[in-house]
């Protein structure tokens, strides 16, 4: 039995379907990320787990207990909100004590626990400040401390790093991951940032238009995208379908191959075993530091993006210019086949 089980969750707002038959198991202690573009239903699913929304259909169980219709204050889950939702009239200490106070923890004990939680996020010096006297990163930490002090079974995080600048966000990613590992609490993390999702998660759930497209480890969803949407959403990909896929890749299914798995070689290159080489013409070449990005057209008119890592000393990499005749080379095992599109049935039953 998984810690959190979602079964056939549906939710509409007016004519907009926010969640369409979402079924998902979340294991105890894992860091799972709900990833998708805005409006894909990931936040709605999070709010249904928190209890802020009731699903139109389906059930939510926590530890085997049906909590679908329980109000938020009766659920053993806590939330870190997108813009922190700290109480502006309360000091850091009072904010962190709030949940303990509603649970009638004695005064001395809750002060002690709050101090420990604030110390855990290294903000002891700010304990008497008001939220508006804190920086964005500090507020973020207090929001985390306020939720963690209640020792929930599950912590829900709704794009908690969205408002931070890039450098701080990367620091907080590491910090969150550390906190999660040390406390052993299940984190359900919502983001639209695929890099953030890959970096932090044990598993990623990819949402699109209210449906679950794929569930898997970062490596699984990247290397073996189950749908065309996943292949296109997670990093860049060359997606080729139908007749062209058969002609160039020798596959009947839709295929996806990552730009970094393609190489360019001079026309004189002879392919090794398992390698496939296709003649092409360079259309564009852009040096972006660590990589050079090429766009080439094959003779069959398929346009491919290729990312070539600049590993040699300056000026010694095999570089091509627009107009050059080249060979686009890849290894057969780097091709990912995307199963036939399974719209509307993608979530149902597949991942149970």
């Amino acid at each position: 039995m998984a810690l959190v089980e979602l079964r056939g969750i549906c939710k509409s707002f007016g004519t907009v379907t926010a969640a369409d038959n979402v079924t998902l198991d979340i294991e105890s202690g894992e860091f799972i990320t709900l990833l998708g573009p805005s409006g894909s239903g990931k936040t709605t699913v999070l709010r249904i787990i928190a209890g802020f929304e009731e699903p139109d259909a389906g059930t939510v169980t926590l530890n085997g207990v049906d909590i679908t219709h329980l109000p938020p204050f009766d659920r053993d889950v806590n939330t870190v909100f997108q813009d922190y939702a700290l109480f502006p009239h309360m000091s850091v200490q009072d904010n962190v004590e709030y949940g303990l106070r509603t649970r009638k923890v004695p005064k001395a004990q809750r002060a002690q626990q709050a101090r420990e939680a604030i110390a855990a996020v290294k903000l002891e010096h700010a304990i008497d400040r008001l939220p508006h006297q804190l920086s964005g990163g500090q507020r973020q930490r207090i929001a985390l401390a306020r939720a963690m002090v209640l020792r929930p079974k599950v912590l829900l995080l709704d794009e908690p790093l969205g408002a931070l600048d890039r450098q701080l966000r990367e620091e907080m990613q590491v910090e969150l991951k550390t906190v999660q590992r040390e406390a052993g609490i299940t984190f359900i993390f919502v983001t639209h940032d695929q890099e953030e999702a890959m970096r932090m998660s044990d598993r990623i759930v990819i949402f699109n238009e209210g449906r679950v497209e794929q569930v898997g480890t970062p490596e699984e969803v990247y290397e073996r995208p189950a749908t065309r949407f996943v292949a296109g959403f997670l990093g860049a990909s060359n997606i080729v379908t139908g007749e062209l896929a058969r002609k160039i890749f020798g596959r009947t299914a839709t295929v996806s191959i990552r730009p970094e798995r393609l190489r360019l070689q001079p026309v004189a290159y002879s392919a090794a075993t398992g390698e496939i080489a296709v003649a092409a013409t360079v259309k564009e070449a852009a040096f972006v530091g660590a990589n050079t990005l090429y766009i080439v057209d094959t003779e069959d008119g398929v346009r491919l993006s290729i990312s070539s890592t600049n590993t040699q000393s300056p000026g010694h990499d095999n570089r091509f210019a627009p107009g050059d005749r080249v060979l686009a080379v890849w290894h057969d095992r780097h091709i990912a086949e995307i199963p036939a599109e399974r719209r509307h049935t993608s979530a149902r039953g597949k991942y149970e």
Partner: protein
Amino acid sequence: MSDITTNSQPRSVRRSRPVSSYLLRRPKLRLLSLLALPMTWIIGVYIFSLFLLLITAFWNVDPFTSLVSPGFNLENFSLVLTNPSYIATSVRTLLIALTVTLVCIMFAVPLGIFMAKIARPWLRNALAVAITLPLWAGYLVKIIAMRLVFTEEGFFNWAMSPIGVRGPGFSVPIVILTLTYLWFPYMALPVYTAIRQIPPNLFDASSDMGAKGFTTVWRVVIPLIVPAMIAGSVFTFSLSLGDYLAARFTGGATQMIGSIIAANINLNPPVAAAYSMVPITFVVIYLAVARRTGSLERM
């Protein structure tokens, strides 16, 4: 010179504007011209007449002819501060004004929460109109309306007679109700606006951390709308303190400070002037207390 040629001239040789350029270099003069009208009003009419009132309070009055003659005596003040019926009226007025304020708050907070957080948009707009609608009616009209409702053969007694309940008749409770009716919009609107401005996720966060509705209202909503309640109470409190027509038409024998001032204004103007210092003092104390809470800056 035609318009076209003027427009084609460079900016530096444009026709000069003597007044504007003169003022531009003299910031103090500019400030003066900005403030001339409002300052004439505030100092000339408002402060000056209050000052005259204060002076009058020290003057003498002939007990037979009611003729007022300038002078300096403190008897008027000592009368107002020592006479038991004056003291009782001051205390009664203060309590009525405080009660009106409290009743307004008790009505405004749940109504504001309902309007801001629960009501659908059409209902919210309908309620906002309903709250402000009484402001469109005249002050006396509203007092007479209350009189009609609570008079001996009025609507209240008629509607309540099947269950054997009778209204209290014209007395202090009806004065409080009337004043609440008169000043409620001044409390309801700022409170509603303040509740609307509370970010919705604070409600989610409170509930997420185990607080039920009442706890959220008590620990989150009320503290955040204190400035709005104080802003509203400045109106409900000071307007109630100065009112005398509500007491006169719906209070039966109830006397408020205003009733006594009104009764003395011809007979003994210095006493009326001295007594009118009492509500002014109450309001000043009230504002000083409100200021200490830091709420006035946000009005």
